[in-house]
């Protein structure tokens, strides 16, 4: 069965998230390997990654709209969204808890920031993956 517009949208979001995260990880990983421990130099890298993410997202949706008629989401899309959110948000909570714990142990701010960022990205990636599973497997 061909995917609905909503399902295509989830694929596009997942791809743009992976592309944005991969770019950020490569550049920030190299910076950390070179001993940069101040958070400020990472900000432009993060902004660039977000811009790339938004561009991929926009291009993907434009392409999806050109190849198929966009449809409004319906009750199944909303249920899948809620269930995926419910089953993935724990990862963000774990990251926040880890970040708070790291602050208590006076871990450098750059590590705490990256832990929070990673948990946010991974939680979102899990949510999108779960959505795709629910679309295919049923819910």
């Amino acid at each position: 069965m061909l995917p609905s517009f909503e399902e295509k949208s989830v694929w596009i979001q997942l791809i743009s998230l992976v592309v944005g995260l991969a770019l950020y990880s490569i550049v920030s990983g190299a910076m950390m390997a070179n001993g940069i421990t101040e958070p400020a130099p990472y900000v432009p890298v993060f902004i660039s990654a977000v811009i790339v993410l938004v561009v991929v997202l926009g291009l993907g949706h434009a392409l999806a709209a050109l190849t198929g008629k966009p449809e409004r989401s319906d009750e199944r899309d909303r249920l899948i969204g809620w269930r995926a959110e419910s089953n993935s948000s724990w990862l963000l909570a774990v990251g926040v808890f880890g970040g708070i714990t790291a602050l208590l142990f006076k871990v450098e701010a750059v590590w705490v920031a990256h832990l929070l960022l990673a948990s946010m990205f991974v939680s979102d990636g899990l949510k999108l993956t779960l959505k795709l599973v629910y679309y295919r497997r049923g819910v």
Partner: protein
Amino acid sequence: MTLPGDVPHRAEVVSGPASYATRVRNHIRTLRFLADEMTQQALADQIGVSRQTLNAIEGGKYSPSLEVAFKIARVFGKPLGEVFELAAD
């Protein structure tokens, strides 16, 4: 009455360990057949869901809300119980 396209029992719907099937059986495929082979898209448009959602309902992969279930029954002019039924344990 069993016509081609009747949604089979839950155990038959499950196609593998990764599949999910609801316990709500339906006769939408049969009713579409009897309604001059109404397309999924035509029915989906009338009840306000996507064709993929209707396909999931028809295939037993998604249990619709009461509102959508009533809308489907109304399209075919049938009571709800003649369109949907709960599979036995």
